[in-house]
Each structure stands twice: as C-alpha cells, then as structure tokens.
C-alpha cells in the first residue's frame, strides 16, 4: 500500500551530523519496502545548507524506492533557507500527516 507514511522527527540543529543520522535512519526504514516519509520539523531550531542537502539525499533515496518525502511544521528560518536556495520547488510542505496522505492518495 502506497499511503504508508512514516514520520521522522529530527531535533535541535539540523546540520551535516544530524542530517547524516536522519539519512541513515530513513535508509533503515527503506530497507525492504516502499515508504513515504514525513519529516516533522517542529523540534528543528535551525537548519543549515548541509542539513538541507542531507534532506535532498534522503529525498533521492526515498524517491528511488518509489515513495515520496515531504516536510511539515517548518519554522521561519527553515522556510527562508528553502526559499533562498529555491528548494521550495523540490520539497512539499504539509501541515499534517493527513494532508500528506491525502496528496499521495490523489496522486495515485
């Protein structure tokens, strides 16, 4: 079933260290099956470009296995970073898990 959504919640500062951890964690989730990932950024205080690039790497892996990845509850700093790097075209941002699953449902 393609609407299987897993939520990951990175904490604090999303930099290269934390981002690599996130990439590994999601990699473990992808091990066997197709999964959709929602990155809940509620607890993310700050994200730098390296953290963002780790998110793209994660997106790449998730897409490769047929799933999709979206963000939710991003703060102002993260939004600004996404806009400045024009990444807001690449990442979809949803308010809730329901909204994400709705969009996957309509896509399918």
């Amino acid at each position, binding site marked *: 079933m393609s609407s299987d959504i897993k939520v990951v919640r990175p*904490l604090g500062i999303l*930099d*290269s*260290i934390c981002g*690599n951890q996130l990439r590994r964690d999601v990699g473990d989730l992808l091990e066997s099956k197709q999964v959709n990932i929602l990155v809940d950024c509620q607890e993310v205080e700050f994200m*730098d*470009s*390296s953290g*963002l*690039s*780790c998110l*793209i*790497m994660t*997106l*790449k892996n998730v*897409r*490769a296995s047929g799933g999709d990845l979206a963000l939710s509850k991003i703060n102002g700093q993260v939004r600004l970073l996404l806009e*400045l*790097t*024009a*990444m807001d*075209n*690449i990442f979809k941002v949803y308010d809730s898990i329901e909204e994400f699953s709705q969009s996957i449902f309509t896509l399918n």
Partner: protein
Amino acid sequence: MITLTSKPPSLDTSNRKLSVFPGNSRSFLKRRTMLFRYFAEINLLLGFWYLQWRVCNSLNYDALWLAVPLLLAEIYSYIGGVLFTLGMWRPIERQTKPLEEMSPALPATDWPTLDAFITCYNESATMVETTARAALAIDYPVTKLIVYILDDGNSQQMREMAQRLCIEDLQSPLLRAAAEQIQTERQELIDRLDMLQQLMPDTYAAEKFLATAISHNQTESLSTRFLQNFHQLLLLKEQKYATVEAQVQAEQERLKQAILHKQIELSGLARCRYIARPKPAGKPHHAKAGNINHAIFAGETTGEFIITLDADHIPKPQFLKHVLPYFVTYNSWNGKYESNRIALVQTPQDFSNLPPGDPYGHQAHLFYGPIQQGKDGLNSAFYTGTNAVLRREAIVNTGLKYFAQAYAQDEKSLDEFDLIGGVSSSSITEDMNTAMRLHAAGWQSIYHNELLAIGLAPDDLSSTLQQRLRWAQGTIQVMTQENPLTKPGLSFWQRLQYFQTMYSYFSGFAMVVFLICPIIFFFTGTVPVTAYGNDFVRHFLPAFIFNRVTFLIIGWGIPARELWRSEQYALSLFPLFIQAVWSVISKRSIHFKVTPKERQSGVYFNLIKPQLIIFGFTILGMSWSLGLFILGQLTDPFVYLVNASWSIYNLSLLWSVIGAATWKPESTK
C-alpha cells in the same frame, strides 16, 4: 616614496617580519603599484597612439587581406593589455596572525572542524600516502581534522594504504591522548545518566505525592510544604517544563545525545578515511567535481571547512593555522568571533620536481603572485582546485541554488544530486566555475600569498600540453555557458577579471597572424604596413619598450628567465588555444592521445607540428631574403631588417616548445 633599490625576491609573505598591528589581519596595496600604474598608463597611451597611427596612416590598402588581420590582431592584443592592466590595478598584500595568536583569543575548543579532501584518480598509492601523511601531520587539533582519500580510481592498493595509515595514525601518542580524553568525558556523562536514572523513580513518586497532597489540600505539614517549595524552585529554574518529570526526561534525552556525540567523536578519531564512489557505467561521473561532491553529500563528511589537495600536493603543517583566521570576524558588540562571507582562501601552487630551466614553463609566480593579488584586490581571487580551503556552507548553499535550477528543468537530475549539488560540474574546469558562482552569490574569496603546499608538475610535454588544453577548453566552456559579462550578481570588477581570463584564451588567432606576416613578406614581398621606415620605428618602439618595462615592473622579484618562459608559452601554444576555441564552439570533444604516466624518452615532435612548420618557414624565408640581399636583388633592406628582427623574436619565443619536445632528463643522456 617609491625606491628602486632592488631587494632579494620575496614571494613569501611569511618571510617578512610580522610587525605588530591591531586586529588579526590587514591588507595594503602591493609595493611598487604606483610605479606600475605610472608606466602602465604611459604604455596604454603610447599603444593607443601607435594603433591610431596604424589605422589612419599605415594601413596597406593594396594588401587588405593581410593588413586587416594584422590590424585586428594588434587591436585584440591592445584590448587584452587594457584588460590586463585594469585587472592589475589594485593588487594587495595581506598579513594575518596565525590562529593561536589571534587577539582576542579564539579558544581551541571553538576552532572549526575540517575535512581534507585528497583527490586522486590513477596516481600511485605511495605518492598519495606521502600527501595523506603530510595532511595528517597538519598542526591542528586531532579531533577536528579528518583526512579523506577520494579515490576515483577505486584501487585496492589505495584502500589498503588508507587503512594502514589510519591504524598507524590511531597509535600515535596524540591520538591516544585524545581518545583517552574523550573516553573520560564519555564516562562522566554515563555516570551522570546512571545517577539521573537512579533518582528518577523517587522523583516521580515525590511529584505524584505532592500533586495528590495539593489536590486534597493537605499541605499543612512541614515536610509537605518544604517539598512543595522545593518543587516550585525546580520548576522556576526551567520554566519550559510543566513538571519535574518532563524536566528530568529532557535531561535524560540530552545526556543520551551527548553520549552518542562522544561516541561519534571517538569513531571520528579514525582520521584517515577512504572513499571510492560507485561509478555505474553509462552514467555521467562528472570527473573531479563529481568526486568531491560525492564526498560532500554521500561520504558522511561533516567538517565546516574543506581543504582540497591534488594527490601530489603536500601540505605544510602550518597550512590551516595560517589560513583559517580569514574565515572569522570579531564582533565587538557581543565579544565573539563570527562566520563571515569569505567562501574560500586560495594559496599558491609550486612544484618540487621542476627540472633546471623549467622547460615546460610550469612555474607560475606571475599568476600566484601579482595576478592573483590583483584579482584579490578586486574581490575576485580565483579558486584553482588545489591548495585552497573552502567553506562548506558556501559551497553547498550555492550548489543547491544551481541544483534547484537543474531540477526545475529536469526532475531526473535528483538522481545525480550527490554528484552535481555542490562544486560546479558543468565545465571541465570546475574550480573556475565554482568560484564564479560563489562570487555571483555574494561570497568573497581571498588569495593568501604564502606557499603552504608543494606539488608535482607534469614532467613530459604530452601531459603538459594536455593540462593546458584542458584549462583553455574549460575556461572557454565556462564563458559560453555562464558569460561573466551578463551573469547576475557579479560586480563590475569581477566581470572584468573573469572576462579578461577568458579573453586571453582567444589569443591563438592573433598569434598566428603575428607569426605568418613576416613569412609572407619574405616570400612575396607583401607588407601589411605601408610605412616600415622611420615613421614605423617612431610609433612602434616607444610602445614596445614601455610595454616591456611595465611587464618587468609587474614581475618584480620574479626571475627574468621565468617571465620570459611564460611569455614564450603564451605565444607558442597558439595551436592549442585555437584547438580549444574550436572544440568548444563546434561542441566537439578533442581526442587527445593519452601517453603513459612514465616519462617517455622519445622526442615529441609530433605534438608540435604547427610550431615546427612555422619555425621552418620563418628560417627558410629569412635565408631566402638574405640570399636575395647578397645577390643585390632586395629592393628595401630596411623592411627586411624589420621583418628579420620580428622573425628572430618569434623564433626565440617558439624555441621553448621545441626545447621542451627534445628535452631529456640529465640521467638518461
């Protein structure tokens, strides 16, 4: 006041005694810049005067087919000279204090983390080992520097070498001490966590007890009141949490994170790591840019700064401590050092394996000296791929923007994000393009004129020519893809600097004209200039002499022999420059015969055929005309004299490649 007393050549600012100055770095106009400007202005005026005379008074209308190309070549050269002069207008010298001497002091715990990327392709493992050892020996806290061998050749030998080196490094006293330190810190954290966990049940129980007591209004007893006070005090300290339980749990989480962090630090002590990216057949690999980007995005590298080293460039221990201070600025409002907008610091390249006389013209004190200092003065110091420190945030941030563009055009580019998302991969000179993108994104660069790494230069003509061809092709490629004159974000001076470099690679066409004109005269008597008499000398000689003098002032301190060598190569590589322009414009890749790595003892005449043909015809022409002169059939000996001197000048410039083609090391003679 400028004095003309000659001083011993000093290209190395570290030689100069560091005088005391406030702050951590300072820059000032390079010495003798005023003298240079004075001569350069006169030179340009005289050049203009000569050119207008050429256009108005000396164009041979009877031989326009020759006169016009020569005039165009002369105008091209003049514009090149103007651009070069403008680019050199404000060369600066810099002085910095090393990291540990900075004032106010930057505590060692706040020093940034660093990744050293040693990029290799098919170099020998022994060569890379020397470089990796030197990189590990860089004077910097061992917990903050990791050396990565980025092996694009994926060789077993290299992998084994890296592992061996890693273990060896771990056994060094410095590393052992560091490991012990981290272990102790980790143990302290674990002990704290244990204690916290022991306290947890009773704390929870107490809080629960208090809650029931309050709800039943049983707070009269002394002990309950004390407990209540204590509880409130705890909550007052951390107002974020509603209960002590939440507080304790957050603390537990924090400790667990910190322990994990120490564990990562411990594993980070394996300081010599090997990365060989997968290179699936049929997919673009994006060469060196792809290699570096893979390490940045998929290689689990985390350093705040990246030092890029070619496989054979051996860094000196003081490299980082001398370069890193540029990347922070002291904020006197909050008393802290903060990141600034410096994206990269480039240091010079020099070579340890140059044969006497440098037959291939590798020495580049002119570029890694006045030229880079001139660029630095206009905030456009170039990145040249090795011996530089880059700010990861700048590379990734800028790379992401360009990736977003690529993604907007084709969503499939996501598949190769790890190869294209950082350093520019769209041209074969990834370094120049990357710097230009950084500049356009508002980042700054610095040229630090101190030799901090020494490398090996190609030691045969074939690989030398191949390297030059790649530079020329790549530069022109960047120009066609991202024209600096129209690229948004660049300042006027940055546009000028990049354009000047690209412009200079079109010189091949002008050079051909300069080489062929005298030959045509010798055999046909046709001249592109109507007046080769006194008038010509009067207009040409002053411009020529001032040009030479200005050049000498620019290259002050650089051996005249090296200046001459660089001039020789600027002319004699004309077929290569033409080839480069043609290949980019026709979008056809050049097939260049790759020769084995070991130097071949043969003579490389096949690589310089065009130069040999021109050389031969020039000599033939001179002798032919000389013969006519002896027979008394030469109509105008003065014109012959001018053309003969011109030819001799050409021949002496061309001689460099012929010498290089026949050059053999002493031992094999």
